[in-house]
Each structure stands twice: as C-alpha cells, then as structure tokens.
C-alpha cells in the first residue's frame, strides 16, 4: 500500500487497482471547520484534474480534483452525515471516494510523502 500526494493537497492511497482519495491534514488545517461535503456519483468517469468533489468550510467552498483518471467505485457517505470528520481524521476516516485506476502511468506524476512535506513546508 502506497500513499501519494498531489500539489493540490489530495492524498491517493493505492491498493491493487483501486485508488482511495482524500484531502491532506495540511489542507483541512487551512480550510478550517468543514460543514459540507459533496461527493461524485458512483460510476462517474473522472479525468485527471477534473473537479470531483466539493468541500465547504465555514469560510469557503473548495473543489477536490481527481488526482488520476478512473471510474468512481465507491464514495464515503459518512462524510455527508458528518463533514467534520475531514477535520478530525483527514488521512483516515475522512476518505472521499475510490477510483478504479484507468492509467497507472498517471501515478508517476504524483509526489511521495517526502516531496509533499517539502511542498507544504
């Protein structure tokens, strides 16, 4: 299991052919209290860098982009009921959606944890 990151503060956990996507703890700390999350529909085909979800904090709405292309296999309905999970457990319980990976070569464009840490330093 590998976790990769985008420069736009999404994390991508790779398990076989499935990528689980969420936003980073750094992102949630910058967003502030999250009050609403809009998730993509299961079955939707997403292209890399396409707006896939929306996270609304008390301050503003922000798009969450698809870090790679793929079909939405599952979404985290717990976030609709409890958006504050994004603040309390961004890297864990607050995953947003899972993608069936369409093109593994797109993973090469993502950062590893060390590179992401440097990016947010």
């Amino acid at each position, binding site marked *: 299991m590998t976790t990769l990151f985008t420069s736009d503060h999404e994390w991508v956990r790779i398990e076989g052919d499935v990528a689980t996507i969420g936003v980073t703890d750094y992102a949630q700390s910058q967003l*502030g*209290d999250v009050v*609403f999350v809009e998730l993509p529909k299961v079955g939707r085909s997403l292209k890399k860098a396409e707006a896939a979800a929306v996270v609304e904090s008390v301050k503003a709405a922000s798009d969450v982009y698809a870090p790679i292309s793929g079909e939405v296999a599952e979404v985290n309905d717990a976030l609709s009921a409890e958006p504050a999970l994004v603040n309390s457990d961004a890297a864990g319980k607050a995953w947003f959606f899972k993608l069936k990976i369409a093109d593994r070569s797109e993973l090469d464009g993502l950062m590893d944890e060390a590179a992401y840490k440097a990016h947010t330093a």
Partner: protein
Amino acid sequence: MMLARDDRSELKRTPLHALHVASGGKMVPFAGYDMPVQYASGVLREHLHTRSHAGLFDVSHMGQIALRPKSGRVEDAALALEQLVPQDILAVAPGRQRYAQFTNGAGGILDDLMVANFGSHLFLVVNAACKAEDEAHLRANLSETCVIEPLPDRALIALQGPKAESVLAKLCADVALMRFMDAGPRSVDRLDCFVSRSGYTGEDGFEISVPAEHAERLAKALLGNGDVLPIGLGARDSLRLEAGLCLYGHDIDATTTPVEGALEWSIQKSRRHGGARAGGFPGADQILSQLESGAARRRVGLRPEGRAPVREGAPLFPDAASSEQIGKVTSGGFGPSINAPVAMGYLPSSHAIGGLVFAELRGQRLPLRVAATPFVPNTYKR
C-alpha cells in the same frame, strides 16, 4: 484542491496586530488591513463562544470621526449631518447612538454608520473600506458648519456576548447601567475611552474606542478574563449573518436604497413625507416614494433546505427549471448556532416569507425558503 495564497505586502496594521500574531491569529487582507480571520480554536468555536460567553473583536480598521459644530451647539452638527442621511439625528439625545446611512442622489447607500451624540459633538463610526470617501463626503458638504476630525489614533475593540457586561464591568462599573445604544465617554481601566452598548453580532455587548497606544493593554486585560476568547473576521461574518445584519458592499451598496435593503425601520417619521424635517437628504425623492409605495425588490433572509451553504453571488430562480433569474444571494454561509446554512439576498417584493425559491449552485438547483431575519433572536439589553 486550491488553497488561497494571500499577498500581504502594503497592508496596514491595527494597534492590536502584534497581539493577533502572538495569539495565533491567521492573518488575511481585509479592507486594506492585515486582519485575523480566525485563531487556533477556529471559526465554529469562536462563533459559539461569542453566543455563550464573550468574544473580543478588533474592529480598529473601521473609521472613527468626530463631527464638531463650529457654533458649539451639537444640534447644529446634527442638522448638518441630516443633509447627508435619511435619519433623525436631532432626536439622538446626548449619550445615545443611532444607525444611519449616507445616501447618494439616486437613493443608493454610500456607507452605513453609527452616529452617537457626545453632548458637545457627534461621534461617527464608519466602514473601513469607505472611510476615506466618507471623510471627503463630510468635508465637501459640512465644512461650513462643522469641523470634521478623523480619529486615526484610536483603536476600536468590540466585546460581544452574554458575559460582555460582567467582563467589562470589572474595568468600568458604569457599563452595567448602560442600555442598548447608549454611548459616551467612559473611563475603562483608567483609560479615556468611548463606550457604546452595541455591536454587530446580535448579542448584547459593547464597542470600546481606546487610545491606540493603550489598546493592547486593554485588550489583554479583557482577554485575561476566562470568559473571553479573541474572535476573527470569519466568526464576525457568521455572527452578523445569523443576526440578519447587512455587510456593506455585499448586502447593501450604492445601487441599493435603504428601502430595498429592508432598512426602513431606521428612517424615522420626522424625515418622511409629512414629518417635521421631511426629505432634505440625497436621494430623498426615490427613498420617500419607496417608503410610501414599496420598492420593486427587497432584501430577504434565505434558509437553504439542504446542508450545502449557498454563498454570495448565487443566482436565484422562481422554480427548479425556469431560466428567468429573479434575484441573487448577497451573503451566505453556514450558521453555527442554528447548525444549518443561512443566506440573504434580493428578490422581487412579491416573494413573501415562507415561499420557496431556487439557487443555482454547481449546475444544480437547490431550494431555499424565504425567511424572516434575524435567524437567531437578538439579545440586546433594551
């Protein structure tokens, strides 16, 4: 996701800037100032703490102006100011304060402000983004009768919430005797302050004008009380939105009249048709006729039916399918005290409270209920 990056060069600082930074304030540009949008506890907790205990807000970026009558009679300053606002200023008794608007020739609002009678002169508090224009407007129109004296060497601190009185009374016993919209010079912690019992949260509370060099000492003395947390601009906005209070430049501006803005309660009978000093302010024809026959559009409260906040700029439609836009949202966000999204916007006056309209958000039509404001009952000590 995109996270905003702020350019902080060229920003002005209030006398409490160092304290904000030391207190962990997240600083953002606002009206030309580097201001705290939130502290470590976050907007949600800051908001709820203000409603349950007390919050301290730095509003030093706002403009403070003394309007001094050359005749020495404060009534002359009041009559002079009445040439620029549709309010009855002559009736503001010494020690009292009133909400007012500067209007333009078309009846639009140039700024909204507070006017206090300090016995010898008037004391005005205006919006930060408008203060230079307001000063110029006062000078251009009132210089014959008044000396216009900006007070940039004073900070302004708001203390809001149910514990505000008990907290401030420890530094100035007199404040317990004040009621809503009382205002005047007071000694607070032995400092020469101006205190008003008013604010921008819907809660009981005070605004304290203090000499800039002593502002930090006073803020620290207030924050030393366990009931008080520092509050940033984020919670200031959600608090005023829940209270149904207008944000200038958003809910009201030079293109909206006080009647369209649902502020006719602030225009006293003496300035209306048949009143002792009817009209005589910019845009009087338009405003007075709207007071009699109504305006075509009106600011209303809006409660989104779902959980998604509907924010400023969202277009409003009469139903889920119509392509005919009938209005737009001017302020919107999440209301922590009612744990639901809230908004304000303009709609044709035919849309009654209780009806449904639809906002377009990310390609979807979301229903909103037209609602009375405030969304949270105010707790002013009248």
